[in-house]
């Protein structure tokens, strides 16, 4: 097959490059739309990591359980932001919920999003924190007291029975939450995977790949933030927890990488009418971000490092550093994956006979700075959430029961 690839007369060489006149002016979806699947992916991944604690009773992950929930919440609040900011008429955004067109993959976003925000994340956080919220409402003063009192929703019952119910409810919501998280992100993949006019996107594997890369990125975000915040707070990092997260990350990465390779191999083998232009795209403009960034640095390197760490004996300090680096690499790799999908899918003409270009601006509503602001906002929200609802008591040694 390789031989065939090298010797085949590229018909693109026989056709002067041509793009449709309407494709000359601009790319339709900018870096903001790259952020959208990235943010939702982080939500789904962080939630699934948190749910491992509740549903599968992964005790080693307990120190990050609440942090993971808050991370999911902070990123979920920001997830629609790049979408709405990108709209030509943001003031009409609510139409998507008032008159959703049911054949559109995008129309269901409003409902999937609200379901996940209201029925899963907020409820789970509420049930999990209810006891503390009531205690804080009683002990704090001033405007904080008002905020906490509102958050109790008027229920101050923290009897053992009520708290036991919170625990049961939380568990139940987690069980609903896992398929919901899968739906949230698998569905984002479907938005791209269902566009039959675009061979770079149109693939049944797209939702699954999106979901797995989401899990990978969410786990990495929790890992990296846990290490960063704990260091910041001058507390001791739980190495068992870090290693456990690293193990889950490794397994998720194996599935993720396998599927991404399957997609590439399948497309190469099938080699339809779109093959020449996609080959040109991935060996040219996308080579660095895809093969070097997304696949090698973002998946192969961290996967190998994590696998080696399963066997190698390392000092705690080295382990934490290694995990931190692996997590960061994966975070960059998944961002590049989103970039390669969203931008890459627009870098060739629908004529399949020419490549277009994307020039990333620095300033402007769709520039680097705007995207950076959207990317920083969830961290600011997370900071507020952590102040309001400290996730740390899990980190303290728990009385064994």
């Amino acid at each position, binding site marked *: 097959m390789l031989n065939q690839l090298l010797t085949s007369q590229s018909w693109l060489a026989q056709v002067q490059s041509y793009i449709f006149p309407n494709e000359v002016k601009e790319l339709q979806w900018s870096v903001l739309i790259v952020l959208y699947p990235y943010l939702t992916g982080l939500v789904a991944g962080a939630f699934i990591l948190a749910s491992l604690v509740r549903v599968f009773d992964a005790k080693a992950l307990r120190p990050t359980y609440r942090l993971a929930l808050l991370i999911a919440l902070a990123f979920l609040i920001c997830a629609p932001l790049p979408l709405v900011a990108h709209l030509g008429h943001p003031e009409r955004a*609510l139409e998507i919920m*008032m*008159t959703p067109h049911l054949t559109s993959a995008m129309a269901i976003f409003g409902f999937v999003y609200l379901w996940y925000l209201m029925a899963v994340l907020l*409820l789970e956080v*509420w*049930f999990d924190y209810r006891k503390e919220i009531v205690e804080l409402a009683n002990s704090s003063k001033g405007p904080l007291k008002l905020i906490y009192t509102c958050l109790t*929703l008027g*229920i101050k019952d923290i009897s053992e029975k*009520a708290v036991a119910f919170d625990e049961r409810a939380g568990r139940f919501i987690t069980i609903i939450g896992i398929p919901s998280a899968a739906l949230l992100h698998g569905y984002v993949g479907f938005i791209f995977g269902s566009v039959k006019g675009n061979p770079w996107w149109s693939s049944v594997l797209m939702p699954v790949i999106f979901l797995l890369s989401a899990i990978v990125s969410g786990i990495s975000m929790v890992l990296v933030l846990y290490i960063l915040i704990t260091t910041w707070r001058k507390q001791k990092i739980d190495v068992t927890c870090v290693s456990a997260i690293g193990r889950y990350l490794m397994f998720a990465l194996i599935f993720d990488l396998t599927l991404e390779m399957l997609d590439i191999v399948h497309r190469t083998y099938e080699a339809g009418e779109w093959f020449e232009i996609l080959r040109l795209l991935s060996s040219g403009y996308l080579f660095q971000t895809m093969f070097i960034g997304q696949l090698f640095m973002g998946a192969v390197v961290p996967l190998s490092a994590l696998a080696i760490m399963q066997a190698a004996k390392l000092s705690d300090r080295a382990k934490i550093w290694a995990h931190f680096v692996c997590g960061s690499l994966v975070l960059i790799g998944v961002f590049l994956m989103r970039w390669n999908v969203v931008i890459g899918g627009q870098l060739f003409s629908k004529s399949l006979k020419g490549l277009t270009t994307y020039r990333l601006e620095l300033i402007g509503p769709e520039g680097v700075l705007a995207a950076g602001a959207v990317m920083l906002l969830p961290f600011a929200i997370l900071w507020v959430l952590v102040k309001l609802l400290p996730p740390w008591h899990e980190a303290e040694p728990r009385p064994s029961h």
Partner: protein
Amino acid sequence: MAPQIPRVALVFGVLVIAFFVARSQTVPDTFGDKGHYRAAFPAELASLPLIHSGKQACMECHSDKPETTPHFKIGVSCESCHGPAQKHVENFDEFKPFVPNTRAACGRCHEAIVGRSPSFPQQNLKEHNPGQRCISCHEIHSEGEPK
């Protein structure tokens, strides 16, 4: 039943009701009357003003032209050469249609370029009487050989 359930149900109930209230207020009147769209829109679009009048409108006044114009007889419309004329139809004193008297105007169709079927009458404008206006020899609105 634990007190949390009715309270959460209350919050969700309020939100659901708020949603339906908002929906009843924001969905446009004719939306959904004929399908999943605003049924009033096609009529709004249809009410846009014309720019090209169409050759029937030209015939109302210039009924003599078809007799004498070979281009017209083979199906060329007045506005193909003279440009959009609806304004002229509405106010013929104030707005006069474009009069194409340059070589470029004729060349638009009759310059020999790659892609034009050989059976279509065309000339190499660089060689064919350069510098001269086409209409100095070719009568457009009357039949006959070039002068």
